[in-house]
């Protein structure tokens, strides 16, 4: 399989060419850093993205709390994560980094607050 990948690790957006037959055999070129190489290999086998959203919060003067996953999750989990986030309500004071849902939807990543409110 051959694939042209726009790297999303940093704003540089390198165009990476990947050619692979299996997980053990991936040839990557066009990247500028080791993170780009790892990203391209992940794109071939199991693409991952950081999920972000905002969820309801009962706090003075605020209606929404921005949240993120603590690590990238499988790309095809983004829509299920977004649907699950709709049902979340948070109460009281929250610090940036506080865990809102541990192992969110079994992705292995926690859903954490991205703002102190």
């Amino acid at each position, binding site marked *: 399989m051959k694939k042209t*990948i*726009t*790297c*999303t*690790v*940093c*704003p540089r*957006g*390198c*165009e990476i060419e990947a050619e692979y037959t299996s997980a053990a055999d991936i040839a990557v070129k*066009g990247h500028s850093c080791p993170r780009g190489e790892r990203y391209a290999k992940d794109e071939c086998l199991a693409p991952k*993205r*950081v999920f*972000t*959203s*905002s969820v*309801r919060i009962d706090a003075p*003067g605020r*209606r*929404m709390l*921005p*949240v*993120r996953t603590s690590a990238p999750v499988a*790309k095809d989990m*983004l*829509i299920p994560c*977004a*649907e699950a986030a709709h049902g979340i309500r948070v109460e009281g004071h929250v610090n*940036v980094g506080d865990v809102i849902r541990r192992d969110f939807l079994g992705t292995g990543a926690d859903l954490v607050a*991205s*703002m*102190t409110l």
Partner: protein
Amino acid sequence: MLGMKTKTCDVVVVGAGPAGLSAAEAAKSAGAGNVLIVERDAAAGGILRQCIHPGFGLKVFGEELTGPEYAERYIERAAAAGAELLTGTTALELRDRELVCASPSGIVNLRFGALVLAMGCRERTRANLVIPGARPSGIYTAGTAQKLINLFGDKVGREVVILGSGDIGMIMARRLTLEGAHVKAVVELLPFLAGLARNKAQCLDDFGIPLLLSHTVVDIDGVDRLTSVTIAPVDEKRRPIPGKEEKIACDTLLLSVGLIPENELSRTGGIALSPVTRGPVVNQFKQTSNPAVFACGNVLHVNDLVDHVSVESAEAGRNAALYAAGALPSAPAFPTVAGPGVRYVCPQSVVADGGEDVTLFFRTTLPGRRTEFLCTSGGKVLATRKSPRTSPGTMEQLVIPKDAVAALDGPVEVRCEHGEVLA
């Protein structure tokens, strides 16, 4: 005047977004006695508060943060450095060494040793584009939709067309898709993407959202609510091609068609503005035509990365502190010139002071591959860089070494030579 309060500060900063926070921290760290940030919103953080997506901080913090996380770190840094923050306060008028503000406790006159303009930018609207058609509800700028969804939890619509391929528009295409809306197309007038390639990859391609280059919206239908937009391809002069129109049913149109630095305050103070960047004309110290007034961030020129804003604004803050202390170096200044292939260069002049290397920021006019950037002065090459790929959506930079800065004796030109033009 009765009830009018006056306060004297070494450095006053207008705006507590990423630019203002970084400038204030740096001014304080550079020795300014009292540094005051005035912010019209109820809280600091600026536009980052609604930018809940990741992608910020790779350069400054070496990790990928969301907008609110990035803002919170700078709010803490500015506070830890000892900068004071006055929220709910709007700067109304800039005089020579005085800023008139409306604060919750009335009009306040702030006398300053130096001032940093960090007001950011505003979105272009339908009025700026002159799109014909009806005037129903359901038409938003991308940033307004972002605010409604991310800060207020509102729903903006179900069937969406986005005009303009700027970064905010693409980010909202993803956000709306995750919120359950159907984004039918992103329509771009130009033959190339306006925003960053990575945002096309992770916001459009990830969700199969079509990007229609060289197309525009030619009509808008709907009585109370938007019911459809009509799009058409454009020719090389960007004129819609008759007979090729296509109607797309939708209840929402987002506009992501560019940002304009917000310089109404600068104009009250007679600050010289560039017709290209629409921000103040500055030297490498970020010093404007009023030597006591500095400018940084999106009010200076529209940036694509907050990390650049933080770095540039720290320089503005530090230089403002030096100016207030009478310690900013002075030397002859030479203009920078946007040469072939370059739309603008910021700063617009370079002071021949060899204290520091000087970074020139610029944008290209066209996308290309195997591009070489060249900075020259009087036939001498001061800096060069090669890039495998470039686009007008990406801010580029070249660094002039300080020895070459000290030796300047004429205008500095930046030009760009593409191995292959992609348009």
